[in-house]
């Protein structure tokens, strides 16, 4: 266990992944970016009611894990779950339709933006109570271990989430039973509108607590897709071979506000500018070009993604409202919501 606050236990980005993998990472990040920008557009157009939380700027984390995970691994995410949902291969259209409250939505409009779930894709849910999914993801890992299935549970959450009780309970649980789980703290420096540093007793809200559960202290550049891919592989492998849980703190930044139309004005301009300069996508694009990738390859990926988001948007818009027949359905396993005879 490394507990020196100044060092980062995991040196990342050393061996670059294969080119095909890197192109896939680029495509994934592009998908997340284009998709969420579109979500923001249709939100401003009034097509998305309620709320929505974007991961713009944080794409490398979802992309790196999406690339590294086995198709039967599980993702548990928060209300800020679009990126993780897309990253597990869930098509754009039903996600977009869910945000718009349409029948064609991933949950037919019953769940909404904060609860994206596609069990078929291993996307085991987005949870809107801060911290609640950490013990639930731990339970999935328990099940994988019990059934010796080799599956790994991956649980994403924010920096602010490290201060809630459920985090603490679940981390200890997972560590005691050496469960196959990777906890990924996306430290974007802010909770809603308050800086994590203003309300946390340590500098690194996740990494500085790893020792409290006997875990390695891991800090990684969350804006570097190669680094994320590498740490994902390392921690997924560890979990799969019985090495138990990992807790990763990925440093990143959200470009937009917390939710909806929040302009994020509580953040200093220079800070925002510095992080925009660290935007994971243009930097990765440049890295690929530097590595000799032909620009036309990247252009084509961007074009393909843009087209498929366009198509999905139209599909979602064409989907009808959910229909009242759904209201009283599927509370119980018999499909009903009947609680009395």
């Amino acid at each position: 266990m490394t507990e020196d606050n100044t060092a980062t236990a995991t040196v990342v980005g050393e061996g670059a992944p294969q080119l095909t993998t890197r192109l896939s990472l680029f495509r994934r990040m592009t998908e997340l970016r284009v998709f969420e920008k579109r979500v923001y557009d249709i939100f401003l157009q009034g097509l998305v009611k309620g709320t929505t939380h974007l991961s713009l700027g944080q794409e490398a984390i979802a992309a790196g894990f999406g690339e590294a995970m086995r198709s039967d691994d599980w993702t548990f995410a928060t209300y800020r779950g679009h990126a993780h949902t897309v990253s597990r291969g869930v098509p754009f259209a039903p996600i977009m339709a869910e945000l718009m409250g349409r029948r064609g939505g991933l949950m037919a409009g019953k769940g909404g933006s904060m609860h994206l779930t596609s069990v078929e894709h291993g996307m085991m849910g987005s949870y809107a109570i801060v911290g609640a999914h950490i013990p639930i993801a731990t339970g999935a890992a328990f099940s994988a271990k019990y059934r010796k299935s080799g599956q790994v549970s991956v649980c994403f959450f924010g920096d602010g989430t490290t201060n809630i009780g459920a985090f603490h309970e679940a981390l200890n649980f997972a560590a005691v039973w050496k469960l196959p789980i990777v906890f990924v703290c996306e430290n974007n420096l802010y909770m809603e509108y308050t800086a994590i540093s203003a309300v946390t007793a340590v500098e690194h809200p996740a990494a500085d607590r790893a020792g409290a559960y006997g875990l390695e202290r891991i800090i990684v550049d969350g804006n570097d897709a190669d680094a994320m891919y590498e740490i994902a592989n390392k921690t997924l492998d560890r979990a799969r071979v019985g090495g138990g849980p990992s807790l990763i703190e990925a440093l990143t930044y959200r470009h937009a506000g917390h939710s909806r139309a929040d302009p994020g004005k509580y953040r200093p301009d220079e800070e925002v500018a510095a992080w925009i300069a660290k935007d994971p996508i243009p930097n990765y694009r440049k890295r690929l070009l530097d590595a000799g990738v032909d620009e036309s390859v990247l252009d084509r990926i961007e074009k393909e993604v843009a087209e498929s988001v366009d198509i999905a948007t139209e599909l979602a818009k064409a989907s009808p409202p959910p229909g009242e027949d759904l209201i009283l359905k599927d509370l119980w396993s018999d499909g009903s919501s009947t609680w009395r005879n």
Partner: protein
Amino acid sequence: MAELSLREAVARAIAQEMRRDPNVVFLGEDVAAAGGVFKTTTGLLEEFGPERVIDTPISEQAILGTIMGAAMTGLRPIAEIMYSDFFAVCWDLVVNQMAKTRYMTNGQVSLPLVMKTGNGGGLRFGAQHSQSIENWAMAVPGIKVVMPSTPVDLVGLFAASVRDDDPVLFLEQKALYTVKGDVPDGDVCFELGKAVVRRMGADAAVVTIGTMVPRALEAAEILAKEHGIDLTVIDLRSLIPLDTACILEHVVRTGRLFTVEENPRVVGWGAEVTSIVADECFFDLDAPLVRITTPYIPLPSAGELEDKTIPSVELIVETILKRMV
């Protein structure tokens, strides 16, 4: 006199109490610098400073524990729990600690504290951000439960809650934040446990609270105009204490009771009111006692679904029409 939205009335109310009493402090997530996620607490940090208006980590158990410990040692703290649904993560502090401590200690401990929170549905926030938790709190003896439906009530009942020596759960209906109304200048403070008759009518008593008050009133107008049915509409304003005398008076007078509530029906406060009536003025009743509620489901997110789920003006009109025969 100023015209305020219910949203603006919140900061007005907190400021009134903080000016009055230096032992009033206020804490919660994003309440200070950001002025609250519902923009209900704007300006308080600027006026009262960071010692009295405090941004906390996302630690609801610590927030409620803090106000409880502060209240038992001389302060009169106010905490915001952002959405009432989040009380589930800190429910122990409410039901096992705050509610029971005075009783268990044979009166040694006073807990003059207020928990304010955004409650109820209608904003397409989905099942985990739209619940009505008033009946959760009623189920556990020892917590007062207050829910204003107008800006002036918000100020007057909030002041009463802060000045009360017992723990109060103060429910701000998110769906009412934009409702406007006049609030007098100077000290505004009402009494807890007093219902208000918002409309007088001879045919039935409609008992309601919060977001359902304007809906019941609108339904009453439609029923009066289009069907000649003349309703009394009672705004309870607080559930604990409950103004049973007011309810019974108007049920006895009209012979009929309808309750209109946002709770998902089962063991809602409407059941309590109905049961009191069914026991205490049974022989004055002319007809079955009818509850109008959200059905027994979590709230769906899509607008079309949510609107058909929480009692609407149409549902109230329809149900009353059907049951008044």
